[in-house]
């Protein structure tokens, strides 16, 4: 089969599954999830086929698989839709397909398929006592639509199609965060997520429009792999002083990433998005959708870095990106340290890790960012699914013991390693990967590469910020593992937890394999001891996506030692701090950090800040100023005055002009039409034959007129 055909076919099965479920299959839960999983499995199969096929292509980056059709004609040119399969999209497809499949399967178990429906359950609320989700089919429809959006985004060959997939995912995210719309918090979270990301999207659309106006095309190949276009863009001064056009476009597009990938200051929606079902958190808010922001800036990497040469000074745009990423990484990590909710920790961790990638892109470490993107998708999906499994197990215990504890609060857990061995071991692997446990895990290799890159190119500030974030990461990861799995149960409910079904644990195992193993494809050649045993395939392959193949960095022991040190140190600290915690005891950090702790616990009061700074002023503006003063007093008063005067003028016109003159003419026309109609209506006898006869007579007359006139 031709590769471009495969690429076209990949996104189709999920959207077909979505349509089939929404239109017909929604009555049968079994059929619905069969369709959804079948659809995504076909996509997965095709993606793997494509992946394997492209591995064999020599110099694949220079000869990607492309195919496009004209879609919307716009004057001389036309907007096109098409697919682009180059190393970057292949890698993207690889992790997206795997995580999609794993999470789809996981959802079956998570939504209690196979259990009796509980008559007490209502739509819009999670099932109370382990019955099957009342809106089971709808969930699968939504995630199928989401899968379509993600695959479109990954495969698109231009920014417009990418944006379509982007927005499609935004919609699905909105729908799925508010999946349990019966809960007020979920409703607020969905609106918050939607509006926050919309801020970024508006700027992104601006960037797209600016790019289109500058180049007349949105195709990646035509812009990014065209030296001339890039040079022109880089040398054209933008409307905002000090930036080149490329810089401004990159910055605008990057704001889209800030929204989508939850970077500071638009990060506030992501923790709240944990209101959705856990598979959604894993799928959308850890593995794929938030990664899409990173994927997008990787995609437009040549544009972002236009005017920059490897090893040279950063452009202003890159500086902004690097700074913002590093700051976010550190900032979110500090918040994660003080969270109690198992999913919230992971949410801030996600923000932090995404900050890593953004920082990596900012310092020009393309391959390292892509590498971390993939490994992070695997281990973060694994962690989320693991946490879902934990919550599921604890909820089960809550139902059994009727104890009122929050099933997501880590301080209520403990000792789950015996109850849920599979979940524990896979979660442990995921956690180690996240904290960058040396040598063994994928997270180590990818994170180390970012750090090494930052260090090698002299971005010291970024390097130390990221290193500090890594330390915190290891710390809160170990804190989480210790609180959840180690020690003794701190509540009765946890004592009654049990392992989840195979549909939930099997994806965990699969993802755990990737969380560990995927790092080995990207071991730097220069690494002492291990380097060169396995070829640095990832660097070779993904690096080929750039016009200029990035050089491998020389080995330097400093960043390695730092990263090993912070990982092990953080883990050790975490374990030491939390290993003996008792039920009901406060967080030992609270004592340690003193007044800082509440700040962290409340996420630097960002929600409150936004509330005071934006939401309330907006309300005030709307209510007091706009409505009461501007609208009621000024505009209404004006309108009333105009109205009264108009009435007077109108009355005059009516009595003097309208009634006698205009109406008279109108009435006369009407009446005469009516009377003439009365006279003519005898013609409409309702007798077909009469009509036909008249028709024939007149046709004959006309024909004979022309014949005679012609003769």
């Amino acid at each position, binding site marked *: 089969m031709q590769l471009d055909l495969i690429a076209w076919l990949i996104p189709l099965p999920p959207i077909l599954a979505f349509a089939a479920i929404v239109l017909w299959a929604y009555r049968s839960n079994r059929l619905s999830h069969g369709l959804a999983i079948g659809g995504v499995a076909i996509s997965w199969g095709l993606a793997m086929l494509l992946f394997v096929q492209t591995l064999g292509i020599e110099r694949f980056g220079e000869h990607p698989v492309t195919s496009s059709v004209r879609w919307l004609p716009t004057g001389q040119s036309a907007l096109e839709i098409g697919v682009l399969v180059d190393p970057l999209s292949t890698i993207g497809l690889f992790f997206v397909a795997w995580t999609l499949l794993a999470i789809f399967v996981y959802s079956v178990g998570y939504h209690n398929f196979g259990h009796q429906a509980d008559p007490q359950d209502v739509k819009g609320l999670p099932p109370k006592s382990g019955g099957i989700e009342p809106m089971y089919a709808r969930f699968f429809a939504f995630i199928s639509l989401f899968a379509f959006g993600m695959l479109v985004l990954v495969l698109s060959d231009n920014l417009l199609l990418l944006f379509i997939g982007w927005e499609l995912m935004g919609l699905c995210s909105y729908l799925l965060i508010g999946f349990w719309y019966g809960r007020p918090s979920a409703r607020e979270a969905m609106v918050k997520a939607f509006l926050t990301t919309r801020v970024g999207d508006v700027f992104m659309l601006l960037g797209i429009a600016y790019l289109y106006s500058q180049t007349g095309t949105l195709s990646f190949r035509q812009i990014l792999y065209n030296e001339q276009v890039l040079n022109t863009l880089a040398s054209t001064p933008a409307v905002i002083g000090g930036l080149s056009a490329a810089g401004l476009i990159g910055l605008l597009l990057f704001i889209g990433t800030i929204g989508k990938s939850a970077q500071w200051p638009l990060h506030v929606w992501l923790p709240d998005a944990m209101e959705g079902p856990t598979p959604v958190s894993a799928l959308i808010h850890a593995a794929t959708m938030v990664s899409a922001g990173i994927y997008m800036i990787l995609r437009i990497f040549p544009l972002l870095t236009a005017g920059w040469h490897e090893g040279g000074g950063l452009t202003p745009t890159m500086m902004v990106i690097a700074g913002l990423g590093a700051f976010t990484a550190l900032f979110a990590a500090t918040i994660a340290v003080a969270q109690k909710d198992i999913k919230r920790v992971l949410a801030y961790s996600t923000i932090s890790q995404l900050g890593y990638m953004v920082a990596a892109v900012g310092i020009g470490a393309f391959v390292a960012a892509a590498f971390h993107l993939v490994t992070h998708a695997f281990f973060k999906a694994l962690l989320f699914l693991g946490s879902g499994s934990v919550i599921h197990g604890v909820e089960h215990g809550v139902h059994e013991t009727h104890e009122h504890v929050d099933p997501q609060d880590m301080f209520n857990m403990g000792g789950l390693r015996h109850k849920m061995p599979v979940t524990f071991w896979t979660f442990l692997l995921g956690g180690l990967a996240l904290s960058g446990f040396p040598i063994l895990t994928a997270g180590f290799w990818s994170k180390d590469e970012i750090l090494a890159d930052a260090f090698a190119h002299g971005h010291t500030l970024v390097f130390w910020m990221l290193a500090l974030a890594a330390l915190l990461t290891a710390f809160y990861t170990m804190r989480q593992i210790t609180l959840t799995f180690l020690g003794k149960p701190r509540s009765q409910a946890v004592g009654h937890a049990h392992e989840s079904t195979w549909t939930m644990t099997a994806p965990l195992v699969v993802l755990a394999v990737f969380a560990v193993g995927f790092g080995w494809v990207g071991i730097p050649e220069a690494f002492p001891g291990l380097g060169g045993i396995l070829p640095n395939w990832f660097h070779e392959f993904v690096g080929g996506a750039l016009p200029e193949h990035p050089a491998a960095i020389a080995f330097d022991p400093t960043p390695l030692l730092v990263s090993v040190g912070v990982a092990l140190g953080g883990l050790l600290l975490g374990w030491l701090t939390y290993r003996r915690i008792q039920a009901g005891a406060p967080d030992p950090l609270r004592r340690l950090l003193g007044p800082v702790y509440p700040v962290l616990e409340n996420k630097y009061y960002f929600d409150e800040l936004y509330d005071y700074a934006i939401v309330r002023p907006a309300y005030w503006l709307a209510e007091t100023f706009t409505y009461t003063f501007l609208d009621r007093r000024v505009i209404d008063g004006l309108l009333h005055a105009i109205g009264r005067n108009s009435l007077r003028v109108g009355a005059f016109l009516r009595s003097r002009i309208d009634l006698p003159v205009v109406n008279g003419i109108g009435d006369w026309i009407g009446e005469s039409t009516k009377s003439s109609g009365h006279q003519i209506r005898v013609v409409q*006898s*309702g007798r077909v034959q009469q009509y036909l006869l008249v028709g024939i007579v007149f046709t004959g007359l006309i024909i004979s007129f022309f014949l005679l006139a012609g003769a």
Partner: protein
Amino acid sequence: MIPLSWYLILAAGLFTIGLFGVLARRNAVAILMSIELMLNAVILNLVAFWRYGQPVDISGQVFAIIVFAVAASEAAVGLALILSIYRRRSTVAAEDINMLKW
């Protein structure tokens, strides 16, 4: 031999007779029959032109066959309509079927 014009005159006759029937008969079934007459005149014309034109080019016969198909459809649908109207209104006189009149 027979000149082509003979066929044409006969076909024209059939056609005008059919036309008269369509215009003047009261009964809808009779109108239908008259339409069949007109269609037959058309077919006769087609075949005659085919025969005197290019018999090797078979298109005249092909068109005749297609007109057959059209005639069959027309008869079936027309009769169904007439039966349906008859069932509702107990009349088949074309001039009484004027429900859509103003």
